[in-house]
């Protein structure tokens, strides 16, 4: 639906006008990170945000705070300590049985209440499924601006948050401000910001916040949670290593070579859209614009030409190796490593080479 | 009600220039028209630059200049004979082409076809996109009474089906109305769009405002195959392409893409494209068999228009004007029969062919009917020997190297005679003149 990134040229017009911040927003101060906890574990994006938030807070000369929500006070205390060690000065803890699982309804209400009570000037969330689910509701409830999927955060000369994000599938970048509303909200995708150094033993202030919710009033119930490790469905978006095949493999039998390499690497496997259309793979393994977006540390693309639809789904990978017979294939324009070879003959050799290498390093360690 | 609605006065297959001309004319005259297009929208299968000839469109939509998406009006035509490193050119540029109602425009087909399609809808035709006609429905006598599509459901009926399905349309072929197209009657052209800021284009081609240039080139660029290269200036892009007869490609070692790469790298072309951003590579077929390749055009309940009927003047690189004209005249014929309440059979629809005979379409195609055969029989000469000779002659003539002009003249004449005997030269001249007549 609509995009926050208005493609209108930014020259002149009202886009550059800076009105005075309304009086009631002037009290809004400090940089906050809404910490993402799922099943007791803090998502690494929250620590990355604390690292980035620290820089913003220092630039503004304000505090960095974290908000943690859940039902297990002990676990929240542990998460709070993590937050301090990753740079937070203050942690708001909201503990309530109704916050056991993430639910939009409860989290939106609690986070909105904390924001309205303590009034931060900047509120950052991870651009994960959870963060995007929550940020949209919170921003709408607060009637403030939100810049989704930012890739760069900075403080402008006048002290406002400058959030830069890609638009039109990465063809353009735009820098977005929320000048006249508070808090200024932004989400940032995992692994975009660097993980900060952990400062062991660092502490800070804890503020307990008593949520005004009761489970009986909550309409949405969590009936079950099927963790990915307990299911055989593809967990492509979260895999660290992904091996994928394309039309260049020639036949469904050859796609087996992709699976074999994936198995040796403990990786997820997937494929480009044509393979779904051919019925070689199921649609939950489709990688690309209308399939899954992946952000692995290593992505191996075998026999995939690299059309834009595929590109936008994989370019968040840290390292992309492309195997293709055509040296002019577009995939070589955005892969980091490339080899001109027939994937059908290279893949088995690669599987062997990886297996040998990993055996050696394992014995060495 | 549903059954009633599935019958129309006419069905048009295809939404290119000929189909749109036909559907527009029919709908404007009040007939109920269904137009069926394979692509996602009209023009989606044709993303490239082209030339629009005003006259043909003016006869359909007189005020088209006010609203159609036009790129530049052509004020300069360059005809080039090329060898591997040079070109010999004839340029015609005239301020007269900066007239109030310019004669030719460069257009981007995707946008133009979309506009034309919107006009068709405005006129009242029903347009179905992303729908492929799979077969013509015939009654027991073999008369065409409707179409079947690739969508689930009943056939749709109409007393006449206008086939504007393009050069490679399968409906007519599959239904046995026209033969499969012969590889020697069709050219394969590959094109690219090169984007450049408009100021750059205007500076490079010496243009002001919406003025445009067209370059047509023949010579060694087609490696001895029958074909031409071309370049059109659009508002913020340049269309560049090259095409050769399919049967020539079939024998050769060179692919169309390689040919285009070489053409773009030619020292006469490369500087014109420098620094551009390439987008959209497309290939399409152009019927170039000329008059002799025209198939049967009418039958019981059907008419063929546009590329499907081989209506392209390959010598003058005209196509869309013939397409629009045949589409319009087919529609006018159908309207007249409809008004009189007459049957649309092979006999009455012959009126379409009679009307065409009286227009430039048939006259021009007849005039050049010998050209395709002539070129095919003398490929090596026309697309290799002569362009090389011209270039050598020019080089000899213009290079100042202490050799006197008389000796140069002799050398040039000798080079022609060595490559092509005097009889050969005279014979070529005679053959070209005869084919041109």
């Amino acid at each position: 639906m609509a995009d926050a990134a208005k493609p209108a040229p930014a020259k002149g017009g009202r886009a550059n006008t800076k009105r005075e911040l309304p009086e009631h927003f002037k009290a809004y101060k400090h940089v906050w990170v809404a910490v993402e906890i799922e099943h007791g574990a803090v998502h690494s994006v929250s620590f990355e945000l604390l690292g980035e938030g620290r820089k913003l807070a220092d630039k503004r000369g304000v505090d960095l705070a974290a908000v943690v929500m859940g039902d297990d006070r002990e676990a929240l205390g542990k998460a709070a300590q993590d937050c301090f060690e990753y740079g937070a000065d203050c942690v708001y803890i909201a503990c309530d049985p109704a916050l056991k699982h993430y639910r939009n309804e409860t989290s939106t209400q609690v986070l909105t209440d904390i924001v309205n009570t303590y009034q931060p000037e900047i509120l950052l969330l991870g651009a994960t499924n959870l963060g995007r689910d929550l940020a949209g509701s919170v921003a709408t409830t607060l009637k403030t601006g939100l810049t989704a999927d930012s890739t760069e955060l900075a403080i402008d000369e006048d002290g406002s948050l400058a959030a830069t994000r890609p638009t039109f599938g990465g063809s353009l970048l735009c820098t977005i401000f929320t000048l006249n509303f508070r808090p200024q909200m932004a989400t940032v995708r995992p692994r975009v910001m660097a993980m900060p150094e952990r400062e062991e033993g660092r502490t800070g202030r804890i503020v307990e916040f008593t949520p005004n919710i009761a489970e009986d009033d909550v309409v949405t119930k969590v009936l079950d949670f099927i963790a990915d490790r307990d299911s055989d469905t593809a967990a492509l978006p979260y895999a660290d290593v992904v091996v994928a095949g394309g039309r260049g493999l020639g036949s469904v039998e050859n796609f087996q070579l992709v699976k074999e390499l994936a198995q040796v690497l403990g990786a997820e496997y997937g494929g480009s859209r044509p393979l779904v259309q051919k019925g070689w793979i199921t649609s939950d393994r489709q990688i690309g614009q209308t399939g899954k977006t992946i952000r692995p540390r290593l992505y191996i693309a075998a026999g995939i030409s690299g059309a834009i639809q595929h590109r936008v789904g994989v370019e968040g990978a840290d390292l992309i190796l492309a195997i293709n017979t055509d040296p002019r294939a577009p995939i070589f324009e955005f892969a980091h490593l490339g080899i001109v070879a027939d994937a059908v003959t290279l893949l088995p050799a690669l599987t062997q080479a990886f297996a040998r290498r990993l055996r050696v390093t394992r014995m060495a360690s | 009600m549903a059954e009633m609605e599935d019958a129309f006065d006419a069905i048009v297959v295809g939404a290119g220039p000929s189909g749109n001309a036909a559907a527009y004319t029919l709908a404007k005259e009040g007939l109920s028209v269904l137009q069926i297009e394979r692509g996602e929208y009209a023009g989606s299968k044709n993303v490239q630059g082209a030339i629009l000839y005003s006259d043909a469109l003016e006869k359909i939509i007189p005020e088209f200049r006010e609203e159609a998406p036009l790129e530049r009006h052509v004020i300069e035509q360059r005809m080039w004979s090329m060898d591997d490193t040079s070109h010999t050119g004839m340029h015609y540029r005239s301020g007269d082409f900066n007239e109030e109602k310019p004669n030719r425009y460069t257009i981007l087909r995707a946008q133009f076809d979309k506009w034309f399609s919107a006009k068709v809808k405005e006129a009242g035709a029903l347009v179905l996109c992303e729908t492929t006609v799979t077969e013509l429905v015939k009654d027991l006598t073999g008369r065409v009474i409707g179409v079947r599509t690739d969508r689930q459901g009943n056939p749709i009926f109409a007393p006449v089906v206008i086939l504007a399905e393009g050069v490679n349309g399968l409906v007519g072929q599959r239904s046995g109305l026209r033969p499969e197209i012969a590889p020697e009657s069709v050219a394969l052209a590959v094109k690219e769009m090169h984007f450049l800021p408009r100021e750059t284009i205007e500076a490079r081609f010496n243009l002001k405002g919406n003025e445009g240039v067209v370059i047509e080139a023949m010579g060694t660029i087609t490696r001895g195959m029958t074909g031409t290269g071309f370049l059109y200036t659009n508002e913020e892009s340049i269309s560049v392409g090259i095409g050769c007869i399919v049967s020539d490609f079939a024998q050769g070692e060179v692919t169309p893409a390689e040919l285009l790469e070489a053409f773009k790298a030619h020292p006469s072309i490369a500087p014109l494209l420098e620094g551009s951003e390439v987008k959209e590579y497309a290939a399409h077929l152009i019927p170039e068999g000329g008059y002799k390749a025209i198939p049967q055009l009418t039958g019981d309940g059907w008419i063929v228009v546009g590329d499907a009927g081989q209506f392209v003047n390959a010598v003058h690189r005209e196509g869309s004007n013939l397409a629009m004209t045949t589409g319009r005249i087919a529609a006018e014929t159908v309207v007249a029969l409809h008004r009189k309440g007459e049957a649309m059979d092979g006999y009455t629809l012959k009126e379409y062919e009679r009307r065409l005979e009286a227009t430039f379409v048939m006259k021009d195609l007849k005039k050049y009917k010998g050209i395709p055969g002539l070129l095919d029989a003398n490929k090596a000469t026309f697309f290799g020997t002569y362009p090389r000779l011209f270039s050598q002659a020019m080089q000899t003539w213009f290079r100042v190297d202490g050799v006197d002009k008389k000796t140069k003249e002799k050398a040039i004449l000798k080079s022609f005679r060595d490559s092509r005997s005097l009889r050969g030269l005279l014979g070529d001249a005679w053959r070209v003149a005869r084919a041109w007549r």
Partner: protein
Amino acid sequence: MHIVVCIKQVPDSAQIRVHPVTNTIMRQGVPTIINPYDLFALEEALRLKDRLGASVTALCMGPPTASESLRKALTFGADRAVLLTDRYFAGSDTLATSYALSMALTKIGEEFGTPEIVFTGKQTIDGDTAQVGPGIASRLKLNQLTYISKIVVTDLEAGRITVERRAETGTQVLATKLPVLITMLEATNEMRRGTIAQALEAARAEIITWNAADVGIEDLTRCGLRGSPTIVKKVFAPTARSEAAEMIAAEGTMDAKARAVVDAIFGRAPGVEDDLTARALHHYV
């Protein structure tokens, strides 16, 4: 049951070009398509219609030309199409967009029955924000169900729905009350092809067109650029990655090439080697 599917007409990202000089999007000649993510929402709505006999309304906010996308939605099998169009909507960010759409949804409810389910796609391919769906849910107090991979049970009588939702590390099974807003996860279904009768009907159909006043928007400062708290100050092209892929030019046997590839990967990402080793332990020991 009444289902509304919100769709957006977007430029086909495969054909987007950025003007080399002005850094603006060159829209001219770029074909528009229904946002691909919205098709998963529309198909899911049509499946519910097949199962439970719902009526499906497609809603689109955009320029008048967006009626083409709505017509396509009708071809797929939607029963009704509403175009929300007004020049005052130009420049809307997610907050202003969700405002306008929620007003249109309220009007749709009044005219054609309150929808039990409002669908949107996961996000768009041009904006990529994934924020308009949640915005609509917040405004209309719909129970918000984002990233839904499966609709398990729809119990109209009890007014309840059970769904599977893609969470970060697994799948949540959620039960809630209707009305809901569902943003459908990608690759969860395959869009159907409408019948010839649907296609003909769609070609003839009248697209219901409403402007701001029609949907009861009186305060125009809540729309478009003025109603958008976010302000785009700068638009620029990303610095092109300086180099294309480093090509591994290994000679010799396939095994030698494979070794060169492995060396190149671990040379660039030593951390990955450690991880893989740990993983290999897990798998093979």
